[in-house]
């Protein structure tokens, strides 16, 4: 038996168009990957990574697990739309397959089955199918209703700011929102006229059947339903809805180990197109929540880059704190893309070739304090005192003079100038013959680890000191002080060091864990990656961050970054802000008083940052 009616054309043409465009884009993107990335695809495609990716596609694209984590209603909205629609298609296919005894039907048949087939008496499990199809439709419609509601007011869905959308996006949105109400209308009218449908469409159909001229709506409604589907499909490649097919590809590529590099690649294109413009990144950004700067967040930046219209304002108005990377339900590497875009902008020609090289004496451990270390001599002094206490053979390589690590230049797009400085420091470091490099500054640690290509391991001092404390080489005795810890952006989200600082602090006192910590920790406001905010704005952010870590309820606020320390100290006269090393010096002094130093921890494998 063959089913056909002219009204299926908009749907079918739209679907065909979408499939061709998406396939073409995927092919272009995959072909555009660099050789290394292609090798990663080839090496992993036939491994269990593909299965894992499939699972993740289901979890994220259908169930929207991460959105659920952010807010239940928002998660439900996304899930009911995606999962509900998917199941409607799947069940519809199954229903027609069974009804037509396994025959392969054109894609429009299951979509418009209620139109084509009014007598389902021969369908096996008819009651179940008609019930489930109505149920799923209601499920989707509940999501659509929430979406209408969200447009009107986004607060209950956990969003303070909703993304502002362009005209085509609104068009696509309208057609998407019309699809399901139109399906409901078409199926109900059909049910009213022909006694088809499940519990809901039948009930609704019977209720409206007595209305005059209801039969006149029959064809127009099916046409409208098909048109709204076709219009939506055609609009997908030109709108944010492209994120739906693209996210699938992104999940696979990411599972194969592909990441952003130091340059834009076609993988970046995949990320740009995978942004759903959900706007979750806007709320996670302190520029927005604290300073009311709500027009530069990742959602806008990615869109502008996708449209090849990234402005300096968008590229530069960001602290590169990385918060939005972790709140993004798609997991887009927002801050890396933004950094790479800064690298693309024409260099200013800044050069540091004239900086004289420095030399240092030899030693087993090379210690680097950096520019921030010069501004926080107390941190350097405490760290070196602990080295002495643990008999570490070290050489303080920038004691008399220091050369900037280059990271402040790098985050502002001055890659060449940064490399010049890096070269000088690399010579300095390697000239010492040291076995490891230790720095108190996470900003330096980050560029050492990511760009210096050193042959020796790089440790942040918290990692190194943890090793010493855990092995008993550094003796510490805790006090009863309450300590809260602030995760520095470059150390936490930047280098993934969350545990060692905490473990170390437990050697010194009572660590109080707060809610907004680790990947969710706030930036202190001191970021070197933004120049357009003033000191007052930074102070304002710093005070909020101190509040978020409960600074007023503890004896010490510990941080592990000299820049955070300075930023907090400037903003607050009420809190004692110390680097972990300074707190440990107190704990070391305690061992001199109490006769039995407590060594309750056993050593765990210590990581490096490179």
């Amino acid at each position, binding site marked *: 038996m063959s089913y056909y009616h002219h009204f299926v054309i908009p749907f079918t043409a739209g679907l065909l168009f979408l499939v061709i465009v998406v396939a073409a884009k995927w092919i272009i993107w995959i072909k555009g990957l660099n050789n290394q990335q292609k090798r990663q695809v080839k090496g992993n495609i036939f491994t269990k990574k593909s299965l894992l990716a499939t699972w993740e596609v289901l979890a994220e694209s259908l169930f929207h697990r991460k959105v659920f984590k952010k807010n239940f209603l928002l998660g439900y909205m996304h899930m009911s739309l995606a999962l509900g629609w998917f199941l409607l298609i799947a069940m519809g296919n199954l229903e027609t397959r069974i009804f037509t005894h396994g025959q392969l039907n054109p894609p429009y048949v299951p979509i418009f089955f209620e139109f084509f087939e009014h007598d389902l008496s021969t369908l096996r499990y008819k009651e179940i199918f008609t019930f489930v199809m109505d149920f799923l439709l209601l499920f989707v419609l509940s999501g659509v209703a929430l979406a209408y509601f969200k447009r009107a007011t986004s607060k209950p869905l956990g969003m303070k700011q909703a993304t502002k959308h362009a005209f085509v996006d609104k068009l696509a949105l309208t057609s998407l929102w019309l699809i399901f109400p139109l399906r409901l209308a078409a199926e109900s009218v059909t049910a009213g006229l022909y006694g088809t449908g499940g519990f809901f469409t039948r009930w609704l159909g019977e209720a409206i059947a007595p209305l005059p001229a209801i039969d006149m709506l029959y064809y127009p409604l099916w046409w409208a339903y098909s048109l709204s589907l076709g219009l939506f499909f055609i609009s997908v490649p030109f709108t944010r809805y492209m994120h739906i097919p693209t996210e699938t590809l992104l999940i696979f590529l990411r599972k194969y180990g592909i990441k952003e590099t130091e340059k834009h690649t076609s993988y970046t294109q995949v990320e740009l197109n995978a942004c759903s413009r959900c706007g979750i990144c806007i709320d996670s950004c302190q520029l927005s929540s604290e300073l009311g700067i709500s027009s530069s967040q990742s959602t806008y930046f990615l869109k502008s880059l996708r449209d090849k219209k990234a402005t300096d304002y968008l590229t530069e108005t960001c602290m590169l704190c990385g918060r939005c990377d972790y709140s993004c339900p798609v997991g887009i590497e927002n801050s890396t893309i933004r950094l790479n875009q800064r690298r693309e902008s024409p260099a200013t020609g800044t050069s540091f070739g004239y900086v004289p090289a420095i030399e240092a004496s030899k030693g087993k451990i090379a210690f680097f304090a950096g520019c921030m270390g*010069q*501004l*926080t*001599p*107390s941190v350097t*002094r405490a760290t070196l005192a602990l080295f002495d206490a643990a008999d570490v053979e070290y050489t303080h390589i920038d004691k008399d003079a220091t050369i900037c690590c280059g990271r402040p230049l790098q985050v502002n797009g001055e890659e060449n100038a940064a490399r010049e400085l890096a070269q000088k420091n690399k010579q300095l470091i390697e000239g010492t013959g040291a076995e490891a490099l230790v720095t108190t500054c996470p900003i330096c640690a980050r560029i050492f680890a990511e760009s210096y290509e050193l042959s020796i391991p790089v440790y942040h001092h918290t990692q190194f000191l943890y090793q010493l404390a855990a092995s008993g080489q550094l003796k510490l005795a805790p006090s009863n002080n309450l300590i809260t810890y602030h995760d520095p952006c470059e150390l936490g989200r930047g280098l993934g060091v969350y545990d060692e600082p905490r473990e170390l602090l437990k050697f010194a006192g009572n660590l109080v864990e707060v809610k907004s910590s680790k990947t969710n920790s706030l930036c202190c406001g001191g970021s070197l990656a933004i120049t357009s905010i*003033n*000191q*007052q704005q930074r*102070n304002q952010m710093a005070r909020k961050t101190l509040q978020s870590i409960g600074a007023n309820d503890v004896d010490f606020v510990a941080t592990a970054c000299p820049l955070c*320390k*300075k930023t907090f*100290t*400037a*903003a607050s*006269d*009420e809190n004692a802000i110390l680097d972990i090393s300074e707190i440990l010096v107190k704990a070391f002094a305690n061992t001199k008083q109490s006769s039995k130093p407590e060594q309750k921890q056993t050593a765990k494998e210590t990581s490096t940052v490179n």
Partner: protein
Amino acid sequence: MTKTVAIIGGGVAGLETAKQLNSLGYSVKLFEKSNTLGGHVAKWDRLFPNKRHASEVVSSLTLSQGNTQTLVGTTVSSIKRQHGNFIISANSNNHEADAVVLATGFELFPAEKKEEYGYGLFENVITSADLEQMFIKHGKPAMASGHKPVRIAFIHCVGSRDEKVNRPYCSKVCCVTAVKQAIEVKEAIPNCEVFCFYMDLRMFGPGYEDLYKEAQSKGVTFIRGRLSESSEIEGGRVQIKAEDTLASTPLKMSVDIVVLMVGMSPQLDTSKLAADLGLSLNADGFIAATDLHTNPTETTTKGVFVTGACTGPNNITDTVNAAKATALDVHNYLSR
């Protein structure tokens, strides 16, 4: 019945206000948290512009108090308004008053906050207030080791005019204090080299410019530039890095003592009292009066007046003038 005025703070501002209100016939209670009167001035050796001993000023004010009831060692922890009166809690006792004058003064900028200068870390980095103590005790500065310094650097604007430590304002008195102290060092140790690192020199008061000329003639070197950082070198000496902005060259220098000209900061405790009373603070954190020009002593809360350095940095002359004005305003308020 005689009306009672509570004055919080026994520095020169509080003392002068008390003296005036006392002679106007009010019953005056003066609260001072430390054990001695005179506030910061009691900690200075000799005063600019005329190098007169600070103790003279303090004793002349304390000796002319008449019937003022002075409560030293008494910290006012809260002030509440009740039926048009005020309840002042200090050392867990309550006192009643018809009007309140806040004369709580300032707090020295905690120089540790400017960590790169090394205060509290390097033994020969001291503050201007520490130097005053050295003059009081020994008549001249000495290194922590006891050695006689041969080179001293004064660093202006520490905790003033510095957004990075959230103190954007000028503290007014530290330029002339540095000039005065530089002269005193030269007089005490003639062969000691003295450098002043300044941003610009604010010699606003009578006789100040003359002091500056005197310093120059005594061989004090003035370098325009802000210190970037200091570090400790052998013998506890201090190496400082700065930029000479007139010569546009970076500069490195080893000195025996670094003197940080710490600014005048708002007091944290005062901010809390102000909050109790619903007073507003100005952008710099000092207590705001209702009208900067025409009403500099009244606050938005009726019956509460402010005077002296708790309204912003000031020298003694301006502080005492303000105190006299405050007394008159309190009198006008109470005799309405």
